[in-house]
């Protein structure tokens, strides 16, 4: 298993994309610290990068990588290895390389400028969002044999969770503004990992009132610590459910 991960890892590093990704994050983080002297404001700006860019890069890179390593998977399947081990190895290698490059690209500037607890929450959110979207990308990849179709599905996931879902939520809250919606809105937020990460961040920054009455209610309902713990658990579910579904499909797939 470790050897398989090692081989995939070195293969990913050789594509140079991951180095480019690290450099991009590094440069933009440094630039933001240069522009603004208040670290907590910078963390807020970085939050937008984390919430938009990381899901997009994770999901697209993983889908492309999966199809590029089809040959490797095919070669491994004729060998005495469990299919599940191959799949898990692929997953761990991709997640760890994306997380390492995120932590290096964003974490180092944050540590240099001393972001405090909020910065660490930001890094945590980035890592967990990477895991969630890599899981989704694996699911998109095993759903179809066609590379273009899989990238389409992956992009659809990203569009849905980053843009469409928020629009829907806004419309929903607006349309039913006359009703008590707090609990329903809370449930609806849990159905979107990007929103969950945003909630964790806002609870940590103690500016949940900025999120309107849902944020205030969220804070009132859970309290900061408990709210963060619950959101983290739901995010873990968001990682596990797509991954396990993908694993199930993969172990029955014809190659």
């Amino acid at each position, binding site marked *: 298993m470790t*050897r398989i991960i090692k*081989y995939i890892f070195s*293969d990913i590093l*050789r*594509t140079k994309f991951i180095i480019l990704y690290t450099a991009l994050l590094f440069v933009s983080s440094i630039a933001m610290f240069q522009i603004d002297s208040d670290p907590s404001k910078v963390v807020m700006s970085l939050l937008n990068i984390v919430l938009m860019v990381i899901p997009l890069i994770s999901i697209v890179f993983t889908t492309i990588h999966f199809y590029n*390593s*089809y*040959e*490797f998977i*095919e*070669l*491994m*399947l*004729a*060998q*005495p*290895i*469990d*299919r599940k081990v191959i799949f898990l190895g692929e997953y761990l290698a991709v997640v760890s390389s994306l997380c390492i490059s995120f932590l290096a690209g964003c974490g180092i500037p944050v540590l240099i400028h001393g972001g405090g607890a909020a910065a660490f929450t930001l890094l945590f959110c980035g890592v967990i969002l990477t895991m969630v979207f890599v899981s989704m990308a694996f699911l998109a990849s095993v759903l179809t044999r066609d590379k273009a179709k899989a990238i389409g599905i992956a992009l659809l996931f990203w569009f849905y969770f980053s843009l469409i879902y928020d629009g829907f939520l806004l419309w929903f809250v607006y349309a039913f503004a006359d009703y008590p919606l707090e609990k329903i809105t809370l449930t609806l937020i849990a159905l979107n990992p990007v929103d969950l990460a945003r909630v964790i961040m806002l609870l940590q920054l103690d500016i949940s009132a900025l999120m309107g009455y849902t944020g205030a209610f969220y804070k009132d309902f859970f309290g900061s610590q408990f709210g963060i713990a619950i959101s983290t658990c739901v995010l873990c579910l968001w990682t596990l459910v797509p991954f396990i579904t993908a694993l199930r499909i993969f172990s*029955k*797939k*014809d*190659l």
Partner: protein
Amino acid sequence: MISIKEVSKTFGKLKVLDRVSLELLRGKSYALVGPNGSGKTTLIKSILGMVIPSSGDILFDDSSIKNDWRYREKIGYMPQIGHYPENMTIGQIIDMMKHIRKNVTQFDESLIEEFKLYKMYDKRMHTLSGGTRQKVSAALAFLFNPPALILDEPTAGLDPVSVELLKNKIREEKSNGKLIIVSSHILSDLDELATHLLYLFEGQVHFNSSISSLKKETGEAKLGKAVATMIGQKQLIESLKK
């Protein structure tokens, strides 16, 4: 050694294998023959667990291969078209395979030597020609001395010298008492390599018996002509039935 029991496989509406039942025994060598799209590769991939049958079961040494993977230690497989990670070198791939089958200590590196792959250990897979890839596939299939060898069109794309080297190797392993399954369209090759003929047509086994008895039945000295005569007879019988 391998018994295939009523195996069917459908891809969508297309029925690729239709209730195939076969007994493949140790020490015998089988030629898998049939027109394009008759299900040869699907049958081979089912034995390897790469394709999962829609119904039926495959037993390897009397235990089902469903949800099992350890049995693949006993199979050397040479694919029709070798797909390899493009960024890896020949040396890395051979090294990786050795690490996967850790319990094998005695390597059979004769083909690596004969094909002179040592010289190309640092070459990346994407720089290799189709024939060289075939050589790598062949070398990997024989490397671990497995009791069963499955070769899917082994001679396609190889130069005449390499074909002879590979055929000698197959003959040698055959005399060592291994189970060998060779699929090919070049019947003259199979004539030298195989003792049994499996003729697959539209997902069904139409013929399964020894090559010598086929030659005797048809009265032909060469396998190619014998198979052609056999197919001709079958078609005649089919048209008479209609």
